[in-house]
C-alpha cells in the first residue's frame, strides 16, 4: 500500500446499525481525509480532519484522529442502504500528494 492499512477490508451491516472503519498511516501528516466511492465511479469528499484536531463531526459522520498511534476512525451512525460504497482514508504529504489507503467495502442491507 502507498499509505497504510484500513480495516476491515469489508463490512456488512443492517440498516440502522453503526459502521466503524479504521485507518492507519505511516508518516507524519498535515491532515487526514475520508472519501467515498459510489458504484465504482464518483469519488466524494466526506470530511477532513487536521493534525491538531482529535475529533470532528459532520451529520451522521464522526471522525477521530490519534496522531500518536497514526490512526483514524470513521463512524457512520444509523446507516442507510445508500451508504453502501467503498470508503477510503487519505493523507497529504508535503508535496500535496494525496495518498490513499486500501479502502473498506461497506455493504448496508435494507
Amino acid at each position, binding site marked *: 500500500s502507498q499509505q497504510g492499512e484500513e480495516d476491515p477490508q469489508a463490512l456488512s451491516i443492517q440498516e440502522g446499525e453503526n459502521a466503524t472503519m479504521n485507518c492507519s498511516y505511516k508518516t507524519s501528516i498535515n491532515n487526514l481525509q475520508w472519501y467515498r466511492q459510489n458504484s465504482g465511479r464518483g*469519488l466524494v469528499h466526506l470530511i477532513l480532519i487536521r493534525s491538531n484536531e482529535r475529533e470532528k463531526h459532520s451529520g451522521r459522520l464522526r471522525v477521530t484522529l490519534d496522531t500518536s498511534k497514526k490512526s483514524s476512525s470513521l463512524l457512520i451512525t444509523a446507516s442507510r442502504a445508500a451508504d453502501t460504497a467503498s470508503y477510503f482514508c*487519505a493523507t*497529504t504529504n508535503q*508535496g*500535496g*500528494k*494525496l495518498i490513499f489507503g486500501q*479502502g473498506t467495502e461497506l455493504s448496508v442491507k435494507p
Partner: protein
Amino acid sequence: EAGVTQFPSHSVIEKGQTVTLRCDPISGHDNLYWYRRVMGKEIKFLLHFVKESKQDESGMPNNRFLAERTGGTYSTLKVQPAELEDSGVYFCASSQVVGTGELFFGEGSRLTVL
C-alpha cells in the same frame, strides 16, 4: 462555479487500442492530479501537474501512459496501446494550493479494456 469535469464517463475498448481521457480542472487551479483505481484495489497516484509542468510523475505505471497539460488548462491522459490490466476508474483532481490536502475530484472515467 463548475467542478472538475472528466470525459468520457465510460469507455470500452479492445486490447491494443488507444484511449484518451480528458480532465478539465476548476478554473484557476494550477495543480492537477491523476489517480486510478484498478479492479477494486486501492486508489493510486499517477501524476501531478503544476500548470503545464509535470511536478511528480512517479506513479505512472509505464510508457504506455502519456499525460499532457498543454497551456496549463485541461489535461489528457492517453493509454496506448491499452492492456487488460489498465481497466479501472481514472480520477482527476485539482487544487489551488499545494499542501492543504483540499483536492477537488471529478466523477472519474471508467475504462474497460476487453
